[in-house]
C-alpha cells in the first residue's frame, strides 16, 4: 500500500527535485520519526524490566538476603526436601500420563477423520480455559468424602484426595493440553503420506509409529514435555484445592512457598521460590534450543 502511494508521485517529470521528494516521501512512509521509535522501544524495555526482570532479581535477592548458608539450610529442611520430592514425583507422573494421552490425541486428530473431531480439539483446550481452582474442585466433587466415588473409595480404603494420587490427577488435568497442542499442528502439517508409504512397504502399525511417526515428531514431543513439566512443577491453584496442605506430606513447592511466606519465613520461602525460578530459566533456554530444532525439522516443501 505504502509503495503504491509513493509510486503515484509523478516520477516521469524529468525534474530531479520531484524525484528527491518522492524518495523522501517513500522513506517517511516506511519509518517513524526517530523520537517516536526511541519512545516505543524505551517503553517496551521499561515494561520488560519492571514486570519480568525485576521480580526475578528480587526472588534471588530475597533468597540470599541472609547469606548462602541460610539459603542452603532452608533448602535442607525436611519439609522443603519433602516438597521437592513430591513436586518431582507429581511432575513425573503427570508428564508421563500426558505424554501418552497427548500423543494418542494428537495422532487421532492429525491422522484420521472422524465425527466429533472438532469437538475433541475444543475439549483439549478446556484445561487452559478453566480456572485451575475449578479444576481442583471437580476432583473434590468426584473423589471427596461427599463426592460421587467418595463412599466407594472409603470402603475400599483408597485415598485419592489429600494424597499423591489427587495431586497428580489435578496436575495432569491442568497440564493436559501442552503435549497435544505442540503435536497437533506438527503432525497435521506432516500429513499421512510417510505412514502410508511405510504400511505399503509392509510395516505394521507399531513399526510405523516407532520407526516413522515418532522420529518425525520427536522435537515436538520434547517441546510439549518441557512446557508440560514447567507447568506441572509450578501449578498452584488446582493442587492447592486437592492437597489438604499436610506439612511434609502433601505440600508441593509452590504450596510450601505460600505457607512459609505467610509465616514470615522469607528466606525459606524465597529459597524454594528461587528453585522454581531457576526451573523457569532452564525451561526457557531448553525451549529456545528445541525451537531451533523444530524449525530445522521443517523441510522446505517439495519442489
Amino acid at each position, binding site marked *: 500500500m505504502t509503495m503504491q502511494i509513493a509510486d503515484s508521485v509523478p516520477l516521469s517529470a524529468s525534474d530531479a527535485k520531484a524525484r528527491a521528494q518522492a524518495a523522501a516521501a517513500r522513506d517517511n512512509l516506511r519509518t517513524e520519526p526517530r523520537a517516536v521509535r526511541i519512545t516505543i522501544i524505551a517503553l517496551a524495555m521499561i515494561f520488560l524490566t519492571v514486570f519480568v526482570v525485576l521480580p526475578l532479581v528480587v526472588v534471588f535477592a530475597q533468597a540470599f538476603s541472609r547469606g548462602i548458608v541460610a539459603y542452603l539450610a532452608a533448602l535442607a529442611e525436611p519439609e522443603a526436601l519433602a516438597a521437592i520430592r513430591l513436586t518431582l514425583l507429581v511432575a513425573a507422573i503427570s508428564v508421563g500420563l500426558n505424554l501418552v494421552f497427548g500423543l494418542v490425541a494428537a495422532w487421532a486428530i492429525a491422522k484420521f477423520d472422524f465425527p466429533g473431531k472438532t469437538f475433541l480439539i475444543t475439549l483439549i483446550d478446556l484445561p487452559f480455559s478453566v480456572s485451575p481452582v475449578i479444576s481442583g474442585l471437580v476432583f473434590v466433587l468426584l473423589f471427596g468424602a461427599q463426592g460421587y466415588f467418595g463412599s466407594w473409595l472409603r470402603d475400599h480404603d483408597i485415598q485419592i484426595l489429600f494424597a499423591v494420587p489427587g495431586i497428580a490427577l489435578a496436575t495432569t488435568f491442568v497440564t493436559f493440553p501442552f503435549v497435544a497442542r505442540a503435536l497437533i499442528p506438527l503432525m497435521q502439517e506432516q500429513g499421512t503420506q510417510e505412514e502410508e*508409504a511405510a504400511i*505399503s512397504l509392509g510395516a505394521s502399525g507399531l513399526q510405523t509409529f516407532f520407526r516413522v511417526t515418532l522420529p518425525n515428531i520427536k522435537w515436538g514431543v520434547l517441546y510439549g514435555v518441557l512446557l508440560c513439566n514447567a507447568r506441572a512443577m509450578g501449578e498452584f491453584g488446582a493442587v492447592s484445592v486437592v492437597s489438604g496442605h499436610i506439612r511434609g506430606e502433601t505440600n508441593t513447592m509452590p504450596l510450601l512457598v505460600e505457607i512459609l511466606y505467610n509465616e514470615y519465613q522469607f528466606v525459606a520461602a524465597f529459597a524454594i521460590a528461587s528453585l522454581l525460578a531457576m526451573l523457569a530459566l532452564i525451561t526457557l533456554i531448553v525451549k529456545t534450543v528445541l525451537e531451533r530444532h523444530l524449525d530445522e525439522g521443517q523441510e522446505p516443501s517439495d519442489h
Partner: protein
Amino acid sequence: MTIEVRNLVKSFGSFKALDGVDLKVDSGELVALLGPSGSGKTTLLRIVAGLDWPDSGEVFINGEDALAQGARERHVGFVFQHYALFRHMTVFENVAFGLRVQPRAVRKDEAAIRVRVKELLDLVQLDWLADRYPSQLSGGQRQRIALARALAIEPRILLLDEPFGALDAKVRKELRKWLRSLHHEIHVTSIFVTHDQEEALEVANRVVVMDKGRIEQIGSPDDVYESPASAFVHGFIGESIELPVQVEGGAVRLDGRPLALAADGLAPGASKLFVRRHDMLVGPPGSGAFEGAVRHVRNFGPVQRAEVTLSGGQTIEIDAPRDKELRAGDTIGLEPRRYRIFGG
C-alpha cells in the same frame, strides 16, 4: 501379475470419485490412468494399493481378492507424487525400510540387506547418494529413491501416483524415458496416474482415459489419439478445435449454414465437431468448408499457430506448416483433413 477391478464405486461425501469402474491389466503391462484432476484416477490407484477402500466393487491382484487384504499384505509398490521419503532416514535406510520391517522369520540378514539396497541404488543410478538425507536431494533424485524403495520389497505390482507431477519439465522428460526403460528391464506390472497426456502417450503401453469417475476409453496410445471414443477424449487428448454444430436433414450445419462435410450415419441434433489443429488445412478463400480471417500468427516450434475468426464469429486456433504464407488480415479457406462429430 494381473490386476482386475470390477464395478468400483467410491464416494467422498456427495462427491462421486469412482462411478462404476472396470479395468483389467495384463501381466507386465505399463498402463497410464489419464484424466483431469477430480476424475478419480488417484482414488482408483489408492484402492488398488489398499490405501483407500471402495464403497462397493471388487479388486483382484493375480486372481486373489485384494479387498480381503490390508495394504500391508498386498505386496504392492507405491510411489507417491510428493515422494513421501522418510525425512529422518538416509537414502540407504529409506530403501532398506521395506526389508527391515519384514517379520523376523523371512527377514534378510544385515549383509543381504546391504547387498540388495546397493543393487537397487545401482538400478536407479544413485548409489553415490546412499548417506544423504532426502532434504539434500533434488526432486528427480528423490523420486528415483522413492522408486527404489518401492522396488525393494519385490512388489507384485507397481503403482505410481503422478510420479513426475512435482518435477520441472526437463527432469520430467528425462525421468519418463528412464521409467520406460526401467519397466522394460524389470517388467513388473505397473499402473501410473497422470494428468499429462504427453506423458501417458509416451510412456504407457495402454492408456485409460478417465473423467468424472468413469472410464471414457481404454486403448493403445495410438488408439486414444487417432480414434477418440468420445467428445471428452477428443477434447482432452491432443489440441483440438471444438465447434458446436447441428446435424439436420443429412447436413452438418454451423450457425444454420450447411458445411461441406459428410453427415452419413450421424444422429440428428446438436453435436460437436472436433478437428485437430494441424488437421485444419489452409487454402485460398472459398476453397474449404470454412472461411475465416487471420487475427494474428505466432511461430511455435515447427509450426505457426494462427488465430482465425470464422465467418460465423467463432475464434479458433490452427497449426499450419512454417512454410505456409500466413499474415494477419488474410482471408483464408479452411478444410478439415480429418474430423469427428460427436452427438449430444
